[in-house]
């Protein structure tokens, strides 16, 4: 009886309890309260991508942010001669294409699933709706994404400085 009632409740609230529990596994949303998560989950769409499946292309308009539930994603940047380099590796629980939340126009990289990957998609329009209706929740998400971006930047900067230091020690001038 209880599963039927729960299913009916899911149908009428357009809300999946499974998705809500998955939301707990993403550290970005750890600051959200239970009620905020219930509201926020309604805006997320769960999508599954196969191995090497393209999620979006380089220079395509940024219209959604992606949060990885399971699997991993590579971000690629085209070089000359049609060759593409992987510039970033995004693991489970992380976010990519977050420029959609900050008003970015087109993506600098393409994204491709490196394994069977499951993501939550947050459309920019839906996020703007959230900003209007629940600014507190939107602010928490922005802060969390901003912190993640800052951590990524700090890590990249540290790696870059270490690399520069090693190159200097090896007397290699780039």
């Amino acid at each position, binding site marked *: 009886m209880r599963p039927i009632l729960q299913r009916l409740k899911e*149908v*009428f*609230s*357009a809300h999946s309890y499974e998705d809500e529990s998955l939301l707990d596994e993403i550290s970005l949303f750890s600051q959200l309260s239970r009620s905020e998560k219930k509201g926020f989950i*309604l805006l997320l*769409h769960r*999508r599954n*991508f196969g191995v*090497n*499946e*393209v*999620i*979006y*292309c*380089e*220079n*395509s*308009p940024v*219209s*959604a942010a992606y949060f990885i539930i399971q699997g991993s994603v*590579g971000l*690629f940047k*085209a070089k000359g*001669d*049609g*060759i*593409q*380099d*992987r510039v970033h590796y995004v693991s489970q629980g992380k976010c990519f294409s977050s420029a959609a939340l900050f008003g970015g126009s087109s993506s600098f990289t*393409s994204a*491709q699933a*490196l394994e069977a990957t499951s993501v939550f*998609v947050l*459309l920019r*329009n*839906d996020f703007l*709706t959230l900003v209007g209706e629940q600014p507190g929740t939107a602010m928490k998400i922005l802060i969390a994404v901003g912190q993640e971006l800052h951590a990524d930047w700090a890590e990249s900067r540290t790696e870059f400085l270490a690399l520069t230091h090693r190159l200097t020690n090896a007397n290699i001038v780039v």
Partner: protein
Amino acid sequence: MRTNFLLTLLLLLLVLVLLLLQYVLPAIPFFKSSLIIAFWVFILCSCHPLLARSVHRKYLILRIILALLLAGIWIAIEGQLFELLLSQSTAEPHAMKNGFLSRRLSARSAQWLEFVGAAQSSVISFADRIASELWPSAGRLLPAILIALLILALWQALRRWFLELIPNAYFVFVAHGLSESGRRLGSYIRSETMQASLTALLWGGALWLLSIPNGFLLSVAMAMASLIPYWGIWFIGFAPPFLTAVFSGNAFQVAALAIALSAIWLLRRVLFAERMQLSRPRIAAIGSLAWALLGAFLVGSSGLLLVLPLSSIVLIIVRAFLQARSTIVREVDLDPLAHLSP
């Protein structure tokens, strides 16, 4: 906007003049009726968005000239119509002994009074027709309301289910299109509901205060007609002052109705113009009239009222998806895997 206020002042002045004329020249209904019609046409020409688009003074003068021209045409037609009615009249007027002018006026009054009854019955039959076309029976109406409520309650769930069926390559496009069309439709429906409710409420109040029969029915019709851009409000708003002018010839009532309609129209513009401009899909004025007439021709009176709101909804959805199209074209047509070397 300043021109509109100037026009309102002019209208008030005209009302005073008309009232004065009504007392000075009470025995000449032809003159009175023609003046009322001229007055009404002037209001129509001054306040209609197509004619009152510019605030330049020379256009105001042109509008007045146009109003007078239209009034002249009406007076000529009305005179011909009266002659025709008089020639067809078989009833001997009561005031034959009072000379030619009295006889003529009495015959005219008798003839118009006959038409008042006919017009009232035709208004009621028109209302019945609208009601029967829009709501064929309570038996059908109730399930329709229930289905609509169920769809509304399940809308989010239906949207999610539908999106789950969409392949990954088209997901962002469809989700973006649905989201955008939903947002635009919501804005359109909210804006139209607010302006239609306010218009109907004010118009119903004005009709009730002025003791116009079937005021509630006319205000409901006004609410529906106000959904038609450019022309809708005038379809229904024109009827009560026009019928009052033609059949009862009460200048005060006509002027009050005309002023009430103009005031409602102006208030509606002030409160909702920006909102409606943003939410309504752009349809050319002539195009909207053509659509409304086509709807009336194909479906009848309900088509006249419903074709433009329905086509607006379709346009909103189509335009939202066209806007979202650029996203999917770039995502699907480009293939970054061709030379991929991870």
